[in-house]
């Protein structure tokens, strides 16, 4: 698991690479929370995420909630296939409110998160 970050016009972009799974949850959590402190506008590029499990989902949900609570913006982008599959299964697309580029055929199941 590696996280590259970029600062761009006040927006902090994070590029997690590899597995967002329980094996890396402990190291990932402080990095993500730290990003929230550093910037008001954060983008999380998920295009290089190979695997996402419940612990990863929880971290994303935590980050989103903390961001909203602090009045900051968190944008998830570039959802990889693995991320899309999980979001679709758990009906999380709407929960995060980010545009997702769904591959054809994945659309259909109507999940939602409240």
């Amino acid at each position, binding site marked *: 698991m590696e996280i590259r970050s970029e600062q761009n016009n006040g927006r902090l972009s994070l590029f997690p690479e590899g597995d967002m*799974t*329980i*094996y890396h949850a402990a190291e990932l959590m402080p990095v993500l929370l730290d990003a929230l402190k550093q910037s008001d506008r954060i983008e999380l590029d998920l295009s290089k995420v*190979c695997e996402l499990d419940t612990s990863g989902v929880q971290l994303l949900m935590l980050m989103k909630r903390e961001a909203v609570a602090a009045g900051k913006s968190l944008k998830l982008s570039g959802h990889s296939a693995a991320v899309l599959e999980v979001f679709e299964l758990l009906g999380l697309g709407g929960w995060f409110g980010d545009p997702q580029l769904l591959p054809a055929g994945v659309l259909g199941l109507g999940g939602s998160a409240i």
Partner: protein
Amino acid sequence: MAKTILIVDDSASIRQVVGLTLKSAGYEVIDAVDGKDALTKLDGRKINLVISDVNMPNMDGISFVKEMKTKPAYKFTPVIMLTTEGSEAKKRDGQAAGAKAWVVKPFQPAQMLDAVSKLILP
């Protein structure tokens, strides 16, 4: 990338059948004949699931799982223990060691595939 499963059993026929079943379902399979052998197979490669017998020579399944769980790379690897009906104590021992799933021997290939599918898909 196909998910990799390590099967640990001293019975060659069980290894063969389970291996065949899982491979044909799309998993990668490696095997080991006992706990000691299995530890040598944990050489840092990614293993998504371990299926282990309990009663084996050299190193039994429970000691193996305990040992495996001390390695950071396999700390959270799910383990299916092969238990016997009536051996509740063994099952509890296994769970305490970190093997949360189980399949009761004797089992049929489909049952094993079923249990594996609950934990990981190929």
